């Protein structure tokens, strides 16, 4: 059991003041899997992925990556372990071009004396070929990100996360702000990633998208794991019931 999954969480708990955001969460992410994390607002999804990506520390619990226990103190450590969070709005710098954004923080440079000159040409070439491997045709990587549409930006943000986080990519509502066609493109990209030996955790409110992209779904409710299902063995009704707690009306008082 120890080695057959990429990421395993054991008994993760987190409180903010008196609010118990997460209680005793166990979670597994398998290799080459798209795991959807769903739940109502305030269910604890964001808190959980923030803990995985090192943005906040858990109060209790253990994190195992490829069978080894790890402690992730900040986003930088998460990145060096191969975990990349792709933030909804924070991912890209509007005033820089696509290639520079993909390489931001790890630029390709040519050193002359003590000065690192940016190798724009190399970064552009590598960006184009990287985007191509993800099935994205984009020649003009010199375009500034602010001139791209919402869907294009999301695709670039995801590509960027994938380029640097080779094992696990966390996507927080990747399709929330997108139109139908753009959301479809992003979802196709997510399915594509799976074939590149990358696991993905995707937070989404859109069950249609969840059923399209995910292999498995984990439902959080009031900071607890309300259930998990393999997508092929469940349907929308069951997931909705888990999200809203309709099935557990009788047990609710026991909490």
């Amino acid at each position: 059991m120890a080695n057959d999954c990429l990421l395993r969480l054991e008994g993760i708990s987190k409180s903010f003041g008196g609010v118990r955001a997460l209680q005793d969460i166990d979670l597994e992410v398998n290799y080459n899997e798209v795991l959807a994390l769903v739940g109502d607002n305030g269910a604890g999804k964001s808190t959980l992925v923030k803990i995985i990506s090192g943005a906040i520390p858990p109060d209790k619990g253990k994190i195992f990556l490829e069978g080894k226990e790890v402690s992730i103190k900040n986003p930088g450590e998460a990145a060096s372990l191969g975990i990349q969070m792709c933030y909804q709005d924070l991912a890209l710098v509007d005033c820089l071009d696509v290639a520079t954004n993909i390489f931001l923080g790890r630029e390709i440079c040519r050193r002359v004396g003590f000065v690192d000159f940016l190798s724009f040409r190399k970064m552009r070439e590598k960006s184009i070929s990287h985007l191509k491997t993800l099935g994205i045709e984009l020649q003009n990587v010199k375009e500034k990100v602010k001139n791209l549409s919402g869907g294009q930006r999301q695709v670039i943000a995801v590509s960027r996360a994938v380029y640097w986080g080779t094992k696990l990519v966390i996507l927080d509502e990747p399709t929330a702000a997108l139109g139908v066609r753009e959301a479809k493109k992003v979802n196709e990209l997510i399915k594509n990633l799976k074939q590149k030996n990358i696991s993905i955790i995707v937070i989404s409110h859109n069950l249609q998208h969840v059923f399209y992209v995910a292999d498995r779904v984990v439902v959080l409710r009031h900071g607890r794991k309300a259930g998990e299902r393999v997508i092929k063995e469940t349907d929308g009704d069951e997931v909705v019931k888990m999200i809203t707690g309709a099935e557990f009306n009788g047990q609710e008082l026991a909490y």
Partner: protein
Amino acid sequence: MGINNFRKSSVNIKDTLIQIKNSRVFLVIVGLFLLSLLLSVLSPHFLTVSNILNVLKQISMIAVVSIGMTYVIITGGIDLSVGSVLALSAVSAAYLMTHNINMYLAITVGMIIGVVCGFISGILITTKINMPPFIATMAMMGIGRGLSMVITEGRPIYGLPNQFGFIAGGYVFGIPMPVIIMIFLYLIGYVHLSYVRTGMYYYAIGGNQEATRVAGIDIRRVKLSAYVISGLTASIAGIILASRLVSIEPLSGSGYELDAIAAAVIGGANLYGGEGSIIGTLVGAIIMGVLRNGLNLLNVSAYWQQVAVGIVIAGVVSINALRKK
């Protein structure tokens, strides 16, 4: 718009030309050209080598201050202290020179003082104190001006060494030294901001500070360095000014901060950060210099000149804002 629509014609000369045409710098260069054309028609004295060199010499100090201001504005900050830091550096250097300290040592100390002032502002802005740049540099503005008055007891310092006068008074190949210093510093700034990794980080921070931080870049260090550069360029401008007058008074440089901001903004810098260019700032400084010079040649009163500069700033920024949409 989907992924397939990403496919665009590959980059070619036409694209590049369109890019140049759409860039903000292009607009200001055209503006400068038209302004110069108008002035050379109106005044026979405008388009002469000596007048042009004179204009460049006059703007050199503001232009040098504007380099640091451009760095700071690109990160989304502002530096109100440059005029005072200019005075403090120049006054300190002059004080040392008149007290039998070696000239080069005095100049070095003056520049170090500028760097230290920028560093202190930067510390206030980037550490836990997290002071807004406007406030931190306003405090430094008061401190710098006050210390200049303390050192000089409110009086000008005269009688600087003749040798010192060469910095601003000398010529190399017929070009005034301040202009050479200015062009040299602009070259460094241009190469740094356009082609060097650390230069690109200023834009990244101005564009999206959080994304830059998440990308693993030490944003505090980058921001701090912008204020240090601003302090350094202000102090260099102070040395040029002191050398040009072979004296310095503690009130020198008053109002330079606003001229420097104006130069950067005319040149396409955005006070919200992320936009601006060193070439644009130089052109912005030249436009203001040419405008003042031209109006002088046409015998327009100094009062009206202020009105004209104000109109130019409002006009250029409005045109840029409308073009963006």
